[in-house]
Protein backbone atom coordinates (compact mmCIF):
# COMPACT_ATOMS: atom_id res chain seq x y z
CA UNK A 1 0.00 0.00 0.00
CA UNK A 2 1.29 3.47 -0.84
CA UNK A 3 2.53 5.53 2.07
CA UNK A 4 0.26 8.25 3.47
CA UNK A 5 3.11 10.42 4.65
CA UNK A 6 6.65 10.32 3.29
CA UNK A 7 9.62 12.07 4.83
CA UNK A 8 12.49 12.32 2.35
CA UNK A 9 16.03 13.21 3.48
CA UNK A 10 14.81 15.90 5.83
CA UNK A 11 17.37 18.11 7.57
CA UNK A 12 16.76 21.14 9.74
CA UNK A 13 19.11 23.14 11.87
CA UNK A 14 18.55 26.12 14.10
CA UNK A 15 21.55 28.44 14.04
CA UNK A 16 24.25 25.78 13.93
CA UNK A 17 22.38 23.22 16.04
CA UNK A 18 21.33 20.33 13.82
CA UNK A 19 17.88 19.37 15.07
CA UNK A 20 17.15 16.86 12.30
CA UNK A 21 19.74 15.25 10.02
CA UNK A 22 18.84 13.35 6.85
CA UNK A 23 15.65 11.80 8.17
CA UNK A 24 13.66 9.50 5.89
CA UNK A 25 10.69 7.29 6.68
CA UNK A 26 7.18 6.44 5.55
CA UNK A 27 3.94 6.37 7.50
CA UNK A 28 1.50 3.74 6.23
CA UNK A 29 -2.21 4.60 6.14
CA UNK A 30 -4.05 3.50 9.28
CA UNK A 31 -1.02 2.72 11.39
CA UNK A 32 0.12 4.14 14.71
CA UNK A 33 3.75 5.08 14.34
CA UNK A 34 5.72 5.96 17.44
CA UNK A 35 8.44 8.58 17.40
CA UNK A 36 10.82 7.93 20.26
CA UNK A 37 14.06 9.32 21.53
CA UNK A 38 15.66 10.96 24.52
CA UNK A 39 15.21 14.65 25.24
CA UNK A 40 16.71 16.80 22.52
CA UNK A 41 16.60 14.03 19.92
CA UNK A 42 14.69 16.25 17.50
CA UNK A 43 11.20 14.83 17.85
CA UNK A 44 9.26 18.06 18.33
CA UNK A 45 11.38 19.75 15.69
CA UNK A 46 10.39 17.04 13.21
CA UNK A 47 6.75 17.54 14.22
CA UNK A 48 7.05 21.23 13.53
CA UNK A 49 8.34 20.47 10.03
CA UNK A 50 5.54 18.03 9.30
CA UNK A 51 2.82 20.37 10.58
CA UNK A 52 4.28 23.23 8.54
CA UNK A 53 5.30 25.40 11.48
CA UNK A 54 8.91 25.37 10.21
CA UNK A 55 10.37 24.74 6.75
CA UNK A 56 13.03 22.03 6.43
CA UNK A 57 16.44 23.21 5.15
CA UNK A 58 16.85 20.10 3.00
CA UNK A 59 14.49 17.37 1.90
CA UNK A 60 10.73 17.21 1.49
CA UNK A 61 7.57 15.93 3.05
CA UNK A 62 4.82 14.35 0.93
CA UNK A 63 1.23 13.73 1.98
CA UNK A 64 -0.45 11.24 -0.38
CA UNK A 65 2.31 12.01 -2.87
CA UNK A 66 1.84 15.79 -2.76
CA UNK A 67 4.58 17.97 -1.40
CA UNK A 68 3.51 19.84 1.73
CA UNK A 69 6.84 20.94 3.18
CA UNK A 70 7.34 24.70 3.11
CA UNK A 71 3.65 25.45 2.54
CA UNK A 72 3.05 26.67 6.10
CA UNK A 73 0.78 25.44 8.90
CA UNK A 74 -2.49 26.61 7.35
CA UNK A 75 -1.94 24.69 4.10
CA UNK A 76 -0.85 21.63 6.07
CA UNK A 77 -4.00 21.78 8.19
CA UNK A 78 -6.14 22.09 5.06
CA UNK A 79 -4.28 19.17 3.48
CA UNK A 80 -5.26 16.96 6.41
CA UNK A 81 -2.54 17.21 9.02
CA UNK A 82 -3.66 17.92 12.57
CA UNK A 83 -1.53 18.17 15.67
CA UNK A 84 -1.49 18.60 19.41
CA UNK A 85 1.16 20.49 21.31
CA UNK A 86 3.59 19.28 23.93
CA UNK A 87 2.82 22.34 26.03
CA UNK A 88 -0.96 22.60 25.82
CA UNK A 89 -2.26 25.55 23.80
CA UNK A 90 -5.94 25.97 24.52
CA UNK A 91 -7.94 29.06 23.59
CA UNK A 92 -8.47 30.22 27.15
CA UNK A 93 -11.09 32.89 26.52
CA UNK A 94 -13.39 30.25 25.04
CA UNK A 95 -15.41 27.33 26.32
CA UNK A 96 -14.49 23.76 25.44
CA UNK A 97 -17.19 23.66 22.77
CA UNK A 98 -15.94 26.89 21.22
CA UNK A 99 -12.37 25.55 21.18
CA UNK A 100 -13.47 22.46 19.30
CA UNK A 101 -15.60 24.59 16.95
CA UNK A 102 -12.48 26.49 15.86
CA UNK A 103 -11.13 23.14 14.69
CA UNK A 104 -14.42 22.26 13.01
CA UNK A 105 -14.40 25.56 11.08
CA UNK A 106 -11.25 24.37 9.26
CA UNK A 107 -13.48 22.56 6.79
CA UNK A 108 -16.91 23.95 7.57
CA UNK A 109 -18.32 27.40 6.86
CA UNK A 110 -21.57 27.43 8.78
CA UNK A 111 -21.79 27.81 12.53
CA UNK A 112 -24.55 25.21 12.75
CA UNK A 113 -22.44 22.58 10.98
CA UNK A 114 -19.39 23.43 13.10
CA UNK A 115 -21.50 23.05 16.26
CA UNK A 116 -22.74 19.63 15.17
CA UNK A 117 -19.22 18.55 14.29
CA UNK A 118 -17.91 19.83 17.65
CA UNK A 119 -20.65 18.01 19.57
CA UNK A 120 -19.86 14.77 17.80
CA UNK A 121 -16.12 15.15 18.40
CA UNK A 122 -16.55 16.08 22.07
CA UNK A 123 -18.73 13.00 22.55
CA UNK A 124 -16.04 10.87 20.93
CA UNK A 125 -13.32 12.31 23.18
CA UNK A 126 -15.38 12.13 26.37
CA UNK A 127 -15.63 15.87 26.81
CA UNK A 128 -19.39 16.35 26.48
CA UNK A 129 -19.76 16.74 30.24
CA UNK A 130 -17.31 19.68 30.11
CA UNK A 131 -18.64 21.22 26.90
CA UNK A 132 -19.54 24.59 28.39
CA UNK A 133 -16.68 24.92 30.87
CA UNK A 134 -14.12 27.62 30.09
CA UNK A 135 -11.05 25.93 28.62
CA UNK A 136 -8.75 27.33 31.29
CA UNK A 137 -10.71 25.52 34.00
CA UNK A 138 -9.93 22.03 32.67
CA UNK A 139 -7.59 19.61 34.43
CA UNK A 140 -4.30 18.82 32.64
CA UNK A 141 -5.69 15.50 31.38
CA UNK A 142 -8.85 17.17 30.11
CA UNK A 143 -6.77 19.83 28.36
CA UNK A 144 -4.90 17.09 26.51
CA UNK A 145 -8.23 15.61 25.48
CA UNK A 146 -9.37 19.04 24.33
CA UNK A 147 -6.30 19.32 22.12
CA UNK A 148 -7.09 15.94 20.57
CA UNK A 149 -10.75 16.90 20.10
CA UNK A 150 -9.85 20.21 18.48
CA UNK A 151 -7.41 18.49 16.13
CA UNK A 152 -9.90 15.73 15.27
CA UNK A 153 -12.62 18.29 14.52
CA UNK A 154 -10.54 19.50 11.58
CA UNK A 155 -11.23 16.16 9.90
CA UNK A 156 -7.58 15.11 9.49
CA UNK A 157 -6.00 12.24 7.58
CA UNK A 158 -3.12 12.06 10.02
CA UNK A 159 -2.96 13.14 13.63
CA UNK A 160 0.33 14.18 15.22
CA UNK A 161 0.31 13.68 18.99
CA UNK A 162 3.14 15.43 20.83
CA UNK A 163 3.63 13.76 24.23
CA UNK A 164 -0.08 13.44 24.78
CA UNK A 165 0.40 10.83 27.53
CA UNK A 166 3.31 12.43 29.33
CA UNK A 167 2.71 13.72 32.82
CA UNK A 168 -0.63 11.99 33.30
CA UNK A 169 -1.54 9.66 36.16
CA UNK A 170 -1.56 5.94 35.27
CA UNK A 171 -5.37 5.94 35.06
CA UNK A 172 -5.43 9.03 32.85
CA UNK A 173 -2.72 7.53 30.67
CA UNK A 174 -4.80 4.36 30.25
CA UNK A 175 -7.76 6.48 29.16
CA UNK A 176 -5.46 8.33 26.79
CA UNK A 177 -4.30 5.05 25.27
CA UNK A 178 -7.92 4.00 24.78
CA UNK A 179 -8.63 7.31 23.03
CA UNK A 180 -5.66 6.84 20.70
CA UNK A 181 -6.92 3.36 19.77
CA UNK A 182 -10.40 4.72 19.15
CA UNK A 183 -8.97 7.40 16.84
CA UNK A 184 -7.11 4.71 14.91
CA UNK A 185 -10.29 2.69 14.66
CA UNK A 186 -11.83 5.64 12.83
CA UNK A 187 -9.23 5.17 10.13
CA UNK A 188 -7.07 8.11 11.13
CA UNK A 189 -3.35 7.53 10.92
CA UNK A 190 -1.37 8.53 13.99
CA UNK A 191 2.17 9.66 14.48
CA UNK A 192 2.92 10.01 18.16
CA UNK A 193 5.89 11.39 20.02
CA UNK A 194 6.51 9.92 23.46
CA UNK A 195 9.63 9.41 25.43
CA UNK A 196 8.11 6.97 27.87
CA UNK A 197 8.76 3.66 26.09
CA UNK A 198 6.59 1.43 28.24
CA UNK A 199 3.53 3.56 27.48
CA UNK A 200 3.97 3.82 23.78
CA UNK A 201 5.42 0.48 22.68
CA UNK A 202 2.29 -1.60 23.36
CA UNK A 203 0.29 0.91 21.32
CA UNK A 204 2.25 1.32 18.12
CA UNK A 205 2.67 -0.95 15.12
CA UNK A 206 6.14 0.42 14.42
CA UNK A 207 8.40 2.97 16.02
CA UNK A 208 11.20 5.23 14.95
CA UNK A 209 13.94 6.09 17.39
CA UNK A 210 15.71 9.40 16.96
CA UNK A 211 18.93 10.32 18.68
CA UNK A 212 20.87 13.53 18.27
CA UNK A 213 18.73 14.43 15.30
CA UNK A 214 19.27 11.24 13.33
CA UNK A 215 17.20 8.10 12.82
CA UNK A 216 18.68 5.45 15.05
CA UNK A 217 16.40 2.67 13.96
CA UNK A 218 12.93 1.88 12.65
CA UNK A 219 11.13 -1.30 13.55
CA UNK A 220 8.44 -3.14 15.45
CA UNK A 221 8.33 -2.65 19.23
CA UNK A 222 9.98 -6.05 19.74
CA UNK A 223 12.86 -5.08 17.47
CA UNK A 224 13.24 -1.66 19.07
CA UNK A 225 13.67 -2.83 22.65
CA UNK A 226 16.40 -5.30 21.64
CA UNK A 227 18.33 -2.87 19.47
CA UNK A 228 21.75 -2.20 21.05
CA UNK A 229 21.91 1.39 19.77
CA UNK A 230 18.57 2.18 21.39
CA UNK A 231 19.70 0.76 24.69
CA UNK A 232 22.89 2.74 24.44
CA UNK A 233 21.02 5.97 23.65
CA UNK A 234 18.62 5.55 26.54
CA UNK A 235 20.70 3.87 29.21
CA UNK A 236 24.32 4.50 28.30
CA UNK A 237 27.13 2.24 27.07
CA UNK A 238 27.30 0.07 30.17
CA UNK A 239 23.96 -1.57 29.49
CA UNK A 240 24.43 -2.06 25.76
CA UNK A 241 26.41 -5.26 25.92
CA UNK A 242 23.29 -7.13 24.74
Amino acid at each position, binding site marked *: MAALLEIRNLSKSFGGVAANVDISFDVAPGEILGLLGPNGAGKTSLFNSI*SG*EVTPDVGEILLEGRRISGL*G*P*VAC*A*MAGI*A*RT*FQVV*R*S*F*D*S*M*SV*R*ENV*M*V*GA*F*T*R*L*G*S*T*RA*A*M*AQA*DETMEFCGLTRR*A*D*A*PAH*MLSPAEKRRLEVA*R*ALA*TGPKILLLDEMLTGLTPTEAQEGVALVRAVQARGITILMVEHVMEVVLPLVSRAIVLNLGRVLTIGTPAEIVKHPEVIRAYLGDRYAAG
Partner: protein
Amino acid sequence: MQNAITLRRRRELITAAILLVLLIVLPLPFHDPYTRNLMILTLLYAALAQSWNILGGTCGQISLGHSLYFGVGAYVSTLLFVWHGVPPWFGMLAAAAVAGLLALLVGWPCFRLSGHYYAIATVVVQEIAYLLFLNWDYIGGASGVYVPFHGQSWMNLQFRTAKLPYFYVMLGFFALTWIAAWLIEGSRWGFSWRAVKDDVIAARSLGVRVFPSKMAAAAISGGLTGVGGAIFAQFVGYIDPDSILSGPLSILIALPAVLGGVGTLWGPLLGAVVLIPLRELSSTFLGSSGSGVDLMLYGALIMVVALMRPQGLVSLFQRGRNGSAS
Protein backbone atom coordinates in the same frame (compact mmCIF):
# COMPACT_ATOMS: atom_id res chain seq x y z
CA MET B 1 -29.82 22.68 17.91
CA GLN B 2 -29.79 24.14 21.40
CA ASN B 3 -26.76 24.54 23.60
CA ALA B 4 -25.09 27.11 25.83
CA ILE B 5 -23.92 29.12 22.82
CA THR B 6 -27.26 29.32 21.03
CA LEU B 7 -29.04 30.09 24.29
CA ARG B 8 -26.58 32.83 25.13
CA ARG B 9 -26.93 34.37 21.70
CA ARG B 10 -30.71 34.34 21.88
CA ARG B 11 -30.52 35.97 25.30
CA GLU B 12 -28.24 38.65 23.87
CA LEU B 13 -30.72 39.41 21.10
CA ILE B 14 -33.63 39.66 23.51
CA THR B 15 -31.64 41.95 25.81
CA ALA B 16 -30.72 44.08 22.82
CA ALA B 17 -34.35 44.37 21.70
CA ILE B 18 -35.51 45.43 25.16
CA LEU B 19 -32.64 47.87 25.46
CA LEU B 20 -33.43 49.34 22.06
CA VAL B 21 -36.99 50.08 23.09
CA LEU B 22 -35.79 51.67 26.32
CA LEU B 23 -33.25 53.77 24.49
CA ILE B 24 -35.84 54.95 21.97
CA VAL B 25 -38.02 56.42 24.73
CA LEU B 26 -35.14 57.46 27.01
CA PRO B 27 -34.59 61.02 25.69
CA LEU B 28 -38.30 61.89 25.54
CA PRO B 29 -38.70 63.07 29.17
CA PHE B 30 -35.52 65.12 29.03
CA HIS B 31 -36.01 68.37 27.17
CA ASP B 32 -32.88 70.32 27.98
CA PRO B 33 -30.27 70.24 25.24
CA TYR B 34 -27.47 69.57 27.72
CA THR B 35 -28.83 66.19 28.79
CA ARG B 36 -29.70 65.18 25.24
CA ASN B 37 -26.24 66.22 24.12
CA LEU B 38 -24.76 64.02 26.80
CA MET B 39 -26.87 61.07 25.66
CA ILE B 40 -25.80 61.59 22.07
CA LEU B 41 -22.11 61.65 23.01
CA THR B 42 -22.51 58.59 25.20
CA LEU B 43 -24.05 56.66 22.33
CA LEU B 44 -21.34 57.92 19.97
CA TYR B 45 -18.53 56.68 22.19
CA ALA B 46 -20.34 53.43 22.89
CA ALA B 47 -20.56 52.84 19.15
CA LEU B 48 -16.94 53.85 18.53
CA ALA B 49 -15.76 51.58 21.33
CA GLN B 50 -17.92 48.80 19.91
CA SER B 51 -16.18 49.28 16.56
CA TRP B 52 -12.77 49.37 18.24
CA ASN B 53 -13.66 46.23 20.14
CA ILE B 54 -14.06 44.25 16.91
CA LEU B 55 -10.34 44.60 16.28
CA GLY B 56 -9.02 45.18 19.80
CA GLY B 57 -11.30 42.86 21.73
CA THR B 58 -12.34 40.06 19.40
CA CYS B 59 -9.12 39.82 17.41
CA GLY B 60 -6.84 41.04 20.22
CA GLN B 61 -5.03 43.69 18.18
CA ILE B 62 -4.85 46.73 20.44
CA SER B 63 -5.07 49.86 18.29
CA LEU B 64 -4.29 53.15 19.99
CA GLY B 65 -4.69 55.15 16.81
CA HIS B 66 -8.35 54.73 15.99
CA SER B 67 -9.01 58.48 15.80
CA LEU B 68 -7.28 58.19 12.42
CA TYR B 69 -10.30 56.35 11.00
CA PHE B 70 -12.73 58.62 12.83
CA GLY B 71 -11.01 61.75 11.55
CA VAL B 72 -10.58 60.54 7.99
CA GLY B 73 -14.21 59.43 7.91
CA ALA B 74 -15.28 62.88 9.09
CA TYR B 75 -13.12 64.64 6.50
CA VAL B 76 -14.26 62.41 3.61
CA SER B 77 -17.94 62.90 4.32
CA THR B 78 -17.63 66.61 5.16
CA LEU B 79 -15.53 67.53 2.14
CA LEU B 80 -17.89 65.63 -0.15
CA PHE B 81 -20.75 67.60 1.42
CA VAL B 82 -19.00 70.99 1.30
CA TRP B 83 -17.42 70.70 -2.13
CA HIS B 84 -19.96 68.63 -4.03
CA GLY B 85 -23.12 68.77 -1.94
CA VAL B 86 -23.12 65.00 -1.48
CA PRO B 87 -25.67 64.13 1.26
CA PRO B 88 -23.96 62.79 4.40
CA TRP B 89 -25.80 59.47 4.08
CA PHE B 90 -23.70 58.75 1.00
CA GLY B 91 -20.80 60.48 2.70
CA MET B 92 -21.02 57.85 5.44
CA LEU B 93 -20.65 55.06 2.90
CA ALA B 94 -17.66 56.82 1.36
CA ALA B 95 -16.24 57.41 4.84
CA ALA B 96 -16.65 53.72 5.68
CA ALA B 97 -14.96 52.68 2.45
CA VAL B 98 -12.03 55.09 2.78
CA ALA B 99 -11.51 54.42 6.50
CA GLY B 100 -11.75 50.67 5.91
CA LEU B 101 -9.22 50.81 3.09
CA LEU B 102 -6.97 52.97 5.23
CA ALA B 103 -7.16 50.38 8.01
CA LEU B 104 -5.99 47.75 5.51
CA LEU B 105 -3.17 50.04 4.42
CA VAL B 106 -2.10 50.57 8.04
CA GLY B 107 -2.51 46.88 8.82
CA TRP B 108 -0.35 45.70 5.92
CA PRO B 109 2.93 46.75 7.59
CA CYS B 110 1.76 47.00 11.21
CA PHE B 111 0.28 43.50 11.56
CA ARG B 112 3.76 42.12 11.03
CA LEU B 113 4.42 43.47 14.50
CA SER B 114 2.90 41.77 17.49
CA GLY B 115 1.63 42.83 20.88
CA HIS B 116 2.92 46.13 22.21
CA TYR B 117 4.82 46.85 19.01
CA TYR B 118 1.61 46.83 17.03
CA ALA B 119 -0.04 49.21 19.50
CA ILE B 120 2.92 51.60 19.29
CA ALA B 121 2.86 51.51 15.50
CA THR B 122 -0.81 52.52 15.45
CA VAL B 123 -0.03 55.54 17.65
CA VAL B 124 2.77 56.57 15.32
CA VAL B 125 0.65 56.26 12.18
CA GLN B 126 -2.15 58.30 13.72
CA GLU B 127 0.26 61.03 14.87
CA ILE B 128 1.74 61.22 11.37
CA ALA B 129 -1.74 61.60 9.93
CA TYR B 130 -2.53 64.27 12.53
CA LEU B 131 0.49 66.36 11.51
CA LEU B 132 -0.30 65.80 7.86
CA PHE B 133 -3.86 67.05 8.23
CA LEU B 134 -2.70 69.95 10.41
CA ASN B 135 -0.46 71.21 7.62
CA TRP B 136 -2.63 70.27 4.63
CA ASP B 137 -4.06 73.67 3.72
CA TYR B 138 -6.07 72.34 0.78
CA ILE B 139 -8.45 70.65 3.22
CA GLY B 140 -8.42 73.45 5.77
CA GLY B 141 -5.23 72.70 7.67
CA ALA B 142 -5.19 73.64 11.33
CA SER B 143 -8.19 75.95 10.97
CA GLY B 144 -10.42 73.04 10.02
CA VAL B 145 -13.61 72.90 7.96
CA TYR B 146 -16.98 74.46 8.71
CA VAL B 147 -19.99 72.50 7.59
CA PRO B 148 -22.34 75.06 5.97
CA PHE B 149 -25.95 74.93 7.07
CA HIS B 150 -28.09 73.88 4.09
CA GLY B 151 -31.41 74.10 5.88
CA GLN B 152 -33.03 71.72 8.26
CA SER B 153 -33.46 68.29 6.67
CA TRP B 154 -32.98 64.59 7.29
CA MET B 155 -31.33 64.31 3.90
CA ASN B 156 -28.53 66.66 4.95
CA LEU B 157 -28.64 65.44 8.52
CA GLN B 158 -28.84 69.03 9.69
CA PHE B 159 -31.21 70.35 12.33
CA ARG B 160 -31.34 73.92 13.61
CA THR B 161 -31.65 73.32 17.34
CA ALA B 162 -33.26 69.90 17.61
CA LYS B 163 -31.13 67.27 19.33
CA LEU B 164 -33.58 64.39 19.10
CA PRO B 165 -32.86 63.50 15.45
CA TYR B 166 -29.15 63.22 16.18
CA PHE B 167 -29.94 61.01 19.15
CA TYR B 168 -31.79 58.58 16.90
CA VAL B 169 -29.07 58.67 14.26
CA MET B 170 -26.48 57.86 16.94
CA LEU B 171 -28.74 55.14 18.28
CA GLY B 172 -28.94 53.71 14.78
CA PHE B 173 -25.16 53.89 14.49
CA PHE B 174 -24.72 52.14 17.82
CA ALA B 175 -27.24 49.47 16.80
CA LEU B 176 -25.28 48.96 13.58
CA THR B 177 -22.01 48.40 15.42
CA TRP B 178 -23.68 46.13 17.96
CA ILE B 179 -25.29 43.99 15.28
CA ALA B 180 -21.98 43.79 13.42
CA ALA B 181 -20.25 42.62 16.61
CA TRP B 182 -23.04 40.15 17.34
CA LEU B 183 -22.99 38.66 13.86
CA ILE B 184 -19.21 38.36 13.92
CA GLU B 185 -19.31 36.70 17.32
CA GLY B 186 -21.45 33.89 15.99
CA SER B 187 -19.67 33.36 12.71
CA ARG B 188 -16.60 31.53 11.53
CA TRP B 189 -14.76 34.86 11.43
CA GLY B 190 -15.46 35.54 15.09
CA PHE B 191 -14.17 32.14 16.12
CA SER B 192 -11.05 32.54 14.00
CA TRP B 193 -10.36 36.02 15.33
CA ARG B 194 -10.72 34.94 18.94
CA ALA B 195 -8.40 32.02 18.22
CA VAL B 196 -5.86 34.51 16.84
CA LYS B 197 -6.22 36.57 20.01
CA ASP B 198 -5.76 33.59 22.35
CA ASP B 199 -2.99 31.62 20.64
CA VAL B 200 -1.61 32.34 17.20
CA ILE B 201 0.33 29.08 16.86
CA ALA B 202 -2.62 26.91 17.82
CA ALA B 203 -4.88 28.95 15.51
CA ARG B 204 -2.55 28.42 12.56
CA SER B 205 -2.35 24.69 13.22
CA LEU B 206 -6.15 24.58 12.84
CA GLY B 207 -6.06 26.30 9.47
CA VAL B 208 -6.82 29.85 10.66
CA ARG B 209 -5.27 32.40 8.30
CA VAL B 210 -3.84 34.79 10.84
CA PHE B 211 -2.82 37.78 8.74
CA PRO B 212 -6.03 37.94 6.65
CA SER B 213 -8.05 37.55 9.86
CA LYS B 214 -6.38 40.62 11.36
CA MET B 215 -6.84 42.55 8.12
CA ALA B 216 -10.55 41.75 7.90
CA ALA B 217 -11.08 42.73 11.53
CA ALA B 218 -9.18 45.98 10.98
CA ALA B 219 -11.16 46.87 7.85
CA ILE B 220 -14.54 46.34 9.53
CA SER B 221 -13.44 48.13 12.70
CA GLY B 222 -11.91 51.05 10.81
CA GLY B 223 -14.86 51.34 8.42
CA LEU B 224 -17.42 51.51 11.22
CA THR B 225 -15.31 54.07 13.07
CA GLY B 226 -15.26 56.18 9.88
CA VAL B 227 -19.06 56.19 9.79
CA GLY B 228 -18.98 57.60 13.32
CA GLY B 229 -16.71 60.40 12.14
CA ALA B 230 -19.09 61.29 9.32
CA ILE B 231 -22.08 61.51 11.67
CA PHE B 232 -20.12 63.46 14.28
CA ALA B 233 -19.09 66.08 11.71
CA GLN B 234 -22.73 66.79 10.81
CA PHE B 235 -23.61 66.89 14.50
CA VAL B 236 -21.02 69.47 15.56
CA GLY B 237 -20.82 71.37 12.26
CA TYR B 238 -17.10 71.94 12.45
CA ILE B 239 -14.09 69.66 12.23
CA ASP B 240 -10.39 70.20 12.73
CA PRO B 241 -7.50 67.81 13.36
CA ASP B 242 -7.37 68.63 17.07
CA SER B 243 -10.95 67.64 17.71
CA ILE B 244 -11.25 64.53 15.52
CA LEU B 245 -7.80 63.16 14.75
CA SER B 246 -5.92 63.44 18.02
CA GLY B 247 -4.13 61.09 20.37
CA PRO B 248 -6.44 61.69 23.34
CA LEU B 249 -9.43 60.88 21.13
CA SER B 250 -7.80 57.57 20.19
CA ILE B 251 -7.59 56.73 23.88
CA LEU B 252 -11.19 57.83 24.41
CA ILE B 253 -12.35 55.49 21.63
CA ALA B 254 -10.67 52.49 23.24
CA LEU B 255 -11.40 53.39 26.86
CA PRO B 256 -15.11 52.50 27.14
CA ALA B 257 -14.36 49.01 25.83
CA VAL B 258 -11.45 48.57 28.23
CA LEU B 259 -13.51 49.88 31.12
CA GLY B 260 -16.61 47.87 30.29
CA GLY B 261 -14.89 44.67 29.22
CA VAL B 262 -12.56 44.04 26.29
CA GLY B 263 -13.94 41.57 23.79
CA THR B 264 -17.41 41.53 25.33
CA LEU B 265 -20.63 42.44 23.59
CA TRP B 266 -21.94 44.83 26.25
CA GLY B 267 -18.66 46.19 27.58
CA PRO B 268 -18.42 49.19 25.23
CA LEU B 269 -21.94 50.47 26.01
CA LEU B 270 -21.51 49.95 29.74
CA GLY B 271 -18.11 51.61 29.70
CA ALA B 272 -19.42 54.61 27.76
CA VAL B 273 -22.42 55.00 30.08
CA VAL B 274 -20.02 55.27 33.01
CA LEU B 275 -17.21 57.19 31.37
CA ILE B 276 -18.82 59.83 29.17
CA PRO B 277 -21.18 61.41 31.76
CA LEU B 278 -18.27 61.35 34.24
CA ARG B 279 -16.12 63.16 31.70
CA GLU B 280 -18.80 65.77 31.08
CA LEU B 281 -19.30 66.32 34.80
CA SER B 282 -15.60 66.72 35.38
CA SER B 283 -15.30 69.26 32.60
CA THR B 284 -18.34 71.13 33.88
CA PHE B 285 -17.16 71.35 37.47
CA LEU B 286 -13.42 71.36 37.05
CA GLY B 287 -13.04 73.24 33.79
CA SER B 288 -12.32 71.44 30.56
CA SER B 289 -9.74 73.11 28.43
CA GLY B 290 -6.23 71.90 28.86
CA SER B 291 -6.40 71.24 32.57
CA GLY B 292 -5.68 67.57 32.17
CA VAL B 293 -8.06 66.68 34.99
CA ASP B 294 -10.06 64.49 32.62
CA LEU B 295 -6.91 62.56 31.72
CA MET B 296 -6.18 61.99 35.40
CA LEU B 297 -9.72 60.74 35.76
CA TYR B 298 -9.27 58.20 32.92
CA GLY B 299 -6.01 57.05 34.47
CA ALA B 300 -7.60 56.57 37.86
CA LEU B 301 -10.54 54.67 36.32
CA ILE B 302 -8.26 52.34 34.41
CA MET B 303 -6.27 51.64 37.55
CA VAL B 304 -9.36 50.89 39.59
CA VAL B 305 -10.81 48.59 36.93
CA ALA B 306 -7.47 46.86 36.32
CA LEU B 307 -7.09 46.17 40.02
CA MET B 308 -10.66 45.31 40.97
CA ARG B 309 -12.23 43.97 37.78
CA PRO B 310 -9.66 43.06 35.11
CA GLN B 311 -12.42 41.62 32.90
CA GLY B 312 -14.24 44.95 32.92
CA LEU B 313 -17.46 46.21 34.48
CA VAL B 314 -19.51 43.79 32.43
CA SER B 315 -18.24 40.94 34.63
CA LEU B 316 -20.30 42.39 37.47
CA PHE B 317 -23.41 41.28 35.63
CA GLN B 318 -22.30 37.84 34.56
CA ARG B 319 -23.51 34.77 36.33
CA GLY B 320 -22.06 31.32 36.22
CA ARG B 321 -18.59 32.29 35.11
CA ASN B 322 -15.36 30.65 36.21
CA GLY B 323 -16.17 27.06 35.57
CA SER B 324 -19.57 26.71 37.11
CA ALA B 325 -21.20 27.48 33.74
CA SER B 326 -23.58 24.73 32.80
